[in-house]
């Protein structure tokens, strides 16, 4: 079990900066995010877009801002649990909180900061018969370990960059890769589209255009997918794995069930310190709501600073907090 002062749900810019503000007050933090990388919307939706409203930076790329935030919080040695979704939050008898993820990781902390933004980014799922039944039994929405597809029959669906990239990669690993795309052209990275067309020409993969996977079948584990073509004709393909790659979409998810006051998918907070209706739980960044709320990175940073002051008093009720400027005392590394 991981033990820390503050468990931060969401490693977007707000959660990351909260590590800094808490670190200045000598509190340890652990960040948890369902995405495999830190950065929230910046890394997931618009990594290459410039941002113009970060003080001190006339313009900075979203991914560069995330990289700089990582560097800025490194002296405070935050823990990271990435690629895992927080499912449960439980108050223990000793007053601390226990955060649990879908992978069974447990984080015990004195205070909880929800910096969940728009919610978890989850895979977009196509409408395919018996899809849910075969999840984990042949259906997967991401490729984590390409080796597990060695010598297997794989069907990939999608027309975006990840569908193209994984088709190219797995062509050398799997027994057979079939890429199913609803259109007849690929947009996005032209090199990848050209490479896929070349692999199809040489017979290294099967490319099925203007078609969709509509049903799955198998006994216990996936064995076959059904594909519908342009004229509505169906055909079955042998498949050990079906990998639909249609990007991610945000969902508030489990946070809704923790007894917090929620208004239109956002957590209501007290603007004094961004505390919620539950003692010891704070909510900062895009996930909270209050009169005048602006969903901006800058506002998330401000909320993190105010939250940290109250969180300190909550975590260390017996210690006195005196406000200090970083320019006076510098940044002292946390052990």
């Amino acid at each position, binding site marked *: 079990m991981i033990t820390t002062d503050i468990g931060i749900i969401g490693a977007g810019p707000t959660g990351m900066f909260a590590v800094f503000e808490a670190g200045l007050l000598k509190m340890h933090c652990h960040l948890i995010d369902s995405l495999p990388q830190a950065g929230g*919307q910046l890394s997931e*939706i*618009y990594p290459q877009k410039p941002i113009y409203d970060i003080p001190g930076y006339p313009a900075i790329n979203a991914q560069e801002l995330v990289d700089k935030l990582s560097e800025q919080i490194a002296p405070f040695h935050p823990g990271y649990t990435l690629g895992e979704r927080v499912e449960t939050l439980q108050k223990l008898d000793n007053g601390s909180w226990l955060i649990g993820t879908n992978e069974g990781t447990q984080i015990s902390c004195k205070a909880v900061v929800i910096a969940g933004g*728009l919610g978890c980014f989850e895979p*977009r*799922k*196509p*409408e395919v018969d018996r899809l849910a039944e075969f999840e984990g039994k042949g259906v997967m929405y991401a490729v984590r370990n390409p080796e597990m597809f060695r010598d297997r029959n794989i069907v990939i*669906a*999608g*027309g*975006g960059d990840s*569908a193209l990239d994984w088709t190219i990669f797995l062509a050398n690993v799997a027994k057979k890769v079939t890429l199913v795309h*609803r*259109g007849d052209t*690929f*947009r*996005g990275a032209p090199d990848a589209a050209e490479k896929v067309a070349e692999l199809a020409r040489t017979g290294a993969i099967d490319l099925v255009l203007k078609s*969709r996977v509509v049903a799955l079948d198998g006994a216990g584990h996936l064995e076959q997918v059904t594909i519908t073509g342009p004229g509505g004709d169906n055909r079955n393909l042998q498949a050990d794995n079906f990998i*639909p790659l*249609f*990007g991610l*979409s*945000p969902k508030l998810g489990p946070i809704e069930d923790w007894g917090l006051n929620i208004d239109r998918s956002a957590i209501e907070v007290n603007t004094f310190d961004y505390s919620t209706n539950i003692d010891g739980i704070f909510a900062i960044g895009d996930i909270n709501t209050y009169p005048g709320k602006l969903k901006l990175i800058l506002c998330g940073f401000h909320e993190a600073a105010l939250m940290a002051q109250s969180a300190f008093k909550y975590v260390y009720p017996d210690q006195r907090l005196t406000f200090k400027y970083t320019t006076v005392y510098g940044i002292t590394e946390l052990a």
Partner: protein
Amino acid sequence: MINFIVEDRNGVQQPIEIPEGISLSLMEVLKGSDYPILATCGGMALCATCRVEVLKGLEQLPEPGDEELDILDTLPFVDESSRLSCQLRVNETLEGCLFRIPEED
């Protein structure tokens, strides 16, 4: 005035009337009318959370641009009737159209 109809996720249809010459996207009108669309990226054709299905009047709408097609092509279950509402300007091309808010993906 520009008149079109919006059907919500429960199948309820409601007429919408917008004065001409207003520079808004359909996404902005839908959000302003409290329809539950996220429009996460604020209309930059990046998130697809503003997707609508055009049940009537598709042929009179301007063709989707490259940015819109790029994102539509990556979605699981879209067909020719799917459009990003943030990329549709509210003008006379929307007159008489019927837009449906699809299920969340």
